[in-house]
């Protein structure tokens, strides 16, 4: 091969790369459009007045932009006798979601670490049994769980809801961490053991720093599931501990009342803001090889 042919091939592949790059961005953009379509409908609807919704095209852009619906959804919509919007319920959801996500993620990480790296006899069976727990329909557990919570004395309380969410999140968090940790070579643990490091030491100083991408995924999953949960929230709460999804449902699902679609849409977006916030913040830690290189090299 001569130098010349080399450069021409290179420049050819260079233009090829640029074309590919453009195709890549176009593909990503088209997918983004698909994902954004319903959000577009929701936002435009939330900016319309009720009269415009009643008379106009539901999909069209608003003729007159008004933020009244957003104000109503946040602090004025009726969720029962109180007409204070979704605001008062936010705090309950935060009190439920943060501890439940933290506890279930930590337990999942430890469980995954055990199942993937400290195999003992029967570990795989235990793991399979926990996995199958992911498939139990929540409608099935409502009634026996209600009874159990009653016996435990935490029916209708926030600790009760945290408890339920942790229990039914364990299968997933364990699964995520286990499947991430099995890809990490077992030699690593062995070498650390030879160096005299114990169970917790290895977890804390080797595995946890390696786990950022999977922690992101787990937190995203758990936070979304718990924040958006309605079934447990509505069944195991009482006046004063209802989460924001119950409030949203009360605004949206009126039976025989006048439907205010603009307020519904605004309330739904507001209720989703904390989850979106988590996605953006947690997403930052998605970077490849943040610390991975140091171990794998």
């Amino acid at each position, binding site marked *: 091969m001569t130098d010349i042919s080399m450069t021409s091939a290179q420049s050819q592949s260079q233009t090829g790369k640029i074309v590919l790059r453009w195709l890549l961005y176009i593909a990503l953009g088209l997918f983004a459009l698909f994902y954004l379509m319903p959000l577009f409908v929701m936002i435009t609807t939330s900016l319309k007045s009720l009269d415009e919704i009643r008379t106009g095209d539901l999909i069209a852009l608003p003729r007159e932009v008004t933020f009244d619906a957003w104000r109503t959804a946040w602090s004025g919509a009726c969720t029962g006798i109180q007409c204070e919007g979704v605001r008062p319920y936010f705090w309950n959801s935060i009190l439920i979601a943060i501890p439940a996500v933290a506890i279930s993620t930590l337990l999942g990480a430890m469980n995954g670490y055990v199942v993937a790296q400290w195999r003992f006899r029967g570990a795989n069976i235990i793991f399979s049994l926990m996995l199958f727990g992911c498939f139990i329909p929540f409608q099935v557990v409502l009634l026996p769980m209600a009874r159990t919570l009653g016996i435990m004395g935490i029916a209708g309380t926030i600790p009760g809801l945290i408890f339920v969410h942790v229990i039914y999140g364990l299968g997933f968090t364990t699964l995520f961490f286990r499947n991430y940790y099995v890809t990490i070579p077992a030699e690593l643990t062995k070498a650390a053991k030879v160096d005299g490091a114990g169970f917790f030491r290895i977890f804390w100083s080797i595995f946890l720093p390696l786990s950022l991408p999977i922690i992101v995924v787990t937190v995203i999953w758990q936070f979304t599931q718990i924040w958006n949960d309605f079934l447990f929230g509505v069944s195991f709460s009482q006046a*004063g501990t209802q989460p924001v999804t119950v409030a949203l449902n009360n605004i949206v699902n*009126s039976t*025989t009342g*006048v439907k205010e679609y603009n307020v519904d849409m605004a309330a739904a977006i507001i209720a989703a803001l904390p989850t979106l916030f988590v996605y953006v913040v947690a997403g930052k830690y998605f970077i490849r090889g943040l610390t991975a290189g140091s171990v794998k090299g």
Partner: protein
Amino acid sequence: MKSVFFGAVSATALIASAVHAEPQAEVLHWWTSGGEAKSVAVLQEEFASKGGTWTDMPVAGGGGDAAMTALRARVLSGNAPTAVQLKGPAIQEWYEEGVLADISAVAEAQGWADVLPASIAGHMKCEGTWCAAPVNVHRVDWIWANADVLEANGIEMPTTWDEFNAAADKLAAAGVIPLAHGGQAWQDATVFEAVALGILGPDGFRKAFVDLDMDTLKSDEMKAVFDQMRTMRGYVDENFSGRDWNLATAMVMNGEAAFQIMGDWAKGEFMAAGKVPGEDFLCASVPGDGFLYNVDSFAMFNVDGDDKKAGQDLLAELIVGQNFQKVFNLNKGSIPARIDVPLDEFDSCAHLSAKDMSESSDNGSLLPSYAHGMALRGAQSGAITDVVTAHFNSDMSSDEAVNMLADAVANSM
């Protein structure tokens, strides 16, 4: 009037003497949106003005399905709410589970038996004792129309189904959608029972949907009901599937469609849009005799503590009280359950409803709505709705539908 007055005095005396605790109530209900919520807030204000403390436990969704889910969980965890919005045979079902409280003392002191129509009072009783307090009477068998559209096409409100079909054909020819409808199971059922009331007549309706008489369910008249449903399917536009009822109402409002068959909560939508009954829109009962009611009510659950029991008595008294019955129903679009409330402030549709209710109460054609859970237990009414909606949304023949109906009802027992 006099007896009511004395009743009120004695009940107040009864509460005052029997209980010194401050009345408490945690109330589970599904009235969460604008007008509904305002209506129930009236009750809370009255409750508070009598010294009571109201804890609100609203759960909307699916016409009370979500609230009933919460209720089961609450009862099983041994933490039942004080008062719960319950209706129809569900009241008796919960009574049979042994969890409802007896409110006969209040009911008798207030003389409920004298002011409630007999068939509605029947729903409030469990084995002879009073176990629930009625709030309102929604009429289900209404037909709503756009006044301008009817006038422009020279159509009168139909009084028979043949007239309705003739009018609909005329409207369709003129390019107007004859019937605004939302293809959700409960809406299909609402239209179905309106048609059934017209074709089967009040007695036939009772036999079919209260007594579940197999011969009536399989009869030729029932086939005729399904035939008419097939005809109605032709009067609905193509995109009706899954449409919310209020969007269907909007179609009538802006002249896209001419008629809608829906309970009187539809009136609230018209009113909210600033429309005037009798001028912009018309209300009439669907062709045929009779009156299908959907009565909301509250039942009291067994709870511990004198303060909660006092709360239950006070709530029951206030719910059936004249003032609440008036204010609540003005907001809600329905009419009072008790017949001695002055209706001066109500609109013309409500007057019609009240007149028809008292007439049909006298001649025995005041009937519970099956589609809204007043006539049958959930398992049976649900089984019927499955068949109705399957028929309406496919090309099933009426013969097939009738057989499926009988099978489904038998299988639901």
